[in-house]
């Protein structure tokens, strides 16, 4: 495989990662990485985190006209 293909693959990978971040698909992974730095607290499960996250997100203006 030549460099242009690798570059294309890299671009696609970045796009995919960005899309996951944008949509919230990778939010739990981000949270776990952050929770690892604070081992004194037990991290939430994926389902707990999902619900908690939504409750916070939709309690302030997050969609505009």
């Amino acid at each position, binding site marked *: 495989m030549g460099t242009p293909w690798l570059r294309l693959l890299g671009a696609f990978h970045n796009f995919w990662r*960005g899309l996951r971040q944008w949509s*919230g*698909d990778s939010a*739990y992974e981000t*949270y776990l990485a*952050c929770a690892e730095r604070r081992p004194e607290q037990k991290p939430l499960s994926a389902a707990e985190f999902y619900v908690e996250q939504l409750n916070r997100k939709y309690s302030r203006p997050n969609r505009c*006209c």
Partner: protein
Amino acid sequence: MKRLLPILIWTAVAALGGVALGTIAFHRGEHINATWFVLAAACSYLVAYRLYSAFIAAKLLALDNTRATPAERRDDGRDFVPTNKWVLFGHHFAAIAGPGPLVGPTLAAQFGYLPGTLWLIAGAAFAGCVQDFVILFCSIRRDGKTLGEMARDEVSKRGGLIAQLAVLTIMIILLAVVALVVVNALKSSPWATFTLAMTIPIALLLGVYLRYFRPGRVLEASLIGVALVLFVVVAGQWVADSPYLAKVFTLGGVTLAFAIIAYGFAASALPVWLLLAPRDYLSAFIKAGAIFSLAAGILLVRPQVLMPPLTRFVDGSGPVFAGKIFPFCFITIACGAISGFHSLISSGTTPKMIQREGHARFIGYGAMLLESFVGVMAMVAACAMTPGVYFAINSPASIVGATPEAAAATISGWGYPLSARTMTGLAHAVGEQTLLNRAGGAPSLAVGMAQIFSSTIGGERLLSIWYHFAIMFEALFILTVLDAGTRVGRFMIQELGGRVWKPMGRMDWMPGVLLSSALIVGAWGYFLYQGVVDPLGGINSLWPLFGISNQLLAAVALVVATTILLKMGKLKWIWVTLLPMAWLVIITMTASYQKIFSANARIGFLSQANVMASQLVAGKVAAAKIADTHRNIFNLRLDAVVTAVLAVMILVLLVEALAQWYAILSRDKAPVLEETPYVATEWAEGD
């Protein structure tokens, strides 16, 4: 040579933009191609971004990339999450872009394409983007504080309360008016009603999937959801063709209004994961897809713009809404040029996720430019249809008549030729019973979009599918604004109520949740109902009210921004926020005054109420309509009071701020800036 090349390129971009703007401004006679609009907008935005936003970033705000942002200092994996600049741009854009930039320009097209297009471009570059950018900056420097908190800390306690009340009021008006747009798009349309109704079970399904089966797997769930939504768009045709089902889903305005009110209450009181969040995911994906395809469609089809640059309605006698270009064009197009609501997104969510102060320019200024571009595309889509058709769709029956023949005669009489057969043929082609009197912007935009899409893919045969796709897309994300807004309104009421009576403030106390949900839904539901039964179609009175309140909120944001900048000692550059603020105060005050006091009964709430009252006294109202007329009179007076309250709020805030500014400038007291102290970033340069 290396330094010369960028200068040459930017000069070329500026020259091209100038030529394109000149072409759309001075073009007379033959129709003009939409490509000129795209060029004029794109080049203006590029130049504004390259020069004006760079100037603001460097001189006014002095963005500092060595300063750690809240996301770096308080990184908690929840609210404070350092986010890639492009991802955050997408996030911020998805939050600020709603139905506003699609509906406003469509309505303002009654003046012709020129006033709205120029205001969209100039308003965004000099006011809207500046507001979003500066408020984002102020909030970053204050750990992501909200606009209300900044108003309280930097202007005065009363200023904070006013900002909070202003937000609640505009929320109520906003929710009512967007709900009215949905009602006007769905009434007597079994296809559209079925499609939108089906998005509710789809959302519930996704909600359960994301909560219990695959927690947080948003992408795969959204993919399933989008496929299902596209399926129900097509399935709507079978419903419309089936005599029995078509009857079930053919609903009148009042029934639809109550259905939407019930939906809003459910979305506010039910757990957020069940209905609200999954619906929001669906709408985000469909919104991104539809906006992208509209841009691609316009570039591929390059339609002719059939609307003249200026219509005869610049004199204020327009059928869609009454009033002259000044101030009503600037009120009608709020989102797309400047929207106060954006300041709530710029303070609150986005500042907690930004990696570097320097990114604020791209995200704050840049995302608003893109929203303005969406507004220009909506303007193109609305102006690409025959003016006669545009007026037939958007004018209320009380002005043009209720039958195709009557509407065609009235509109042709205005000088926009239209035959009754065109309207019935078009309604048939898009799979509707009628397209007449559907004020609100959504149906005419959908016709415009469907015509553009179908000339790329599918031709006439797919026109009806494209039309219902466009209606579904608009209605879907209007409902998302509606349920998210209702929920936030409920929290605001609970918070305000909690100050008076403690238990009210507890977000998990069921009676409090139900009571505050009922209050907020009742408030916007009342205005929605009033709009649905309004003989003039409702949009005529509610949309200007919404525009005024949205622009007032922008004025609040710019007052806060100006105060902060003065305290930072930026007197020399203060015109950057002061001039747009002054402009907004002028247009909102003029519009409020005219809406309340104008002697023209089509503009002034009070004079219209007086006309009705004198008809009652003179006995000219049929006995069956007396109760309705009493209610209409009450509603008009209520609208006048709401407008006055909004205007007084901004005046009080302005006086508070002026006192502050005077104290700062006369050095009576040392300015106290509530900024978080400087902390150096630990991230390497270029992160």
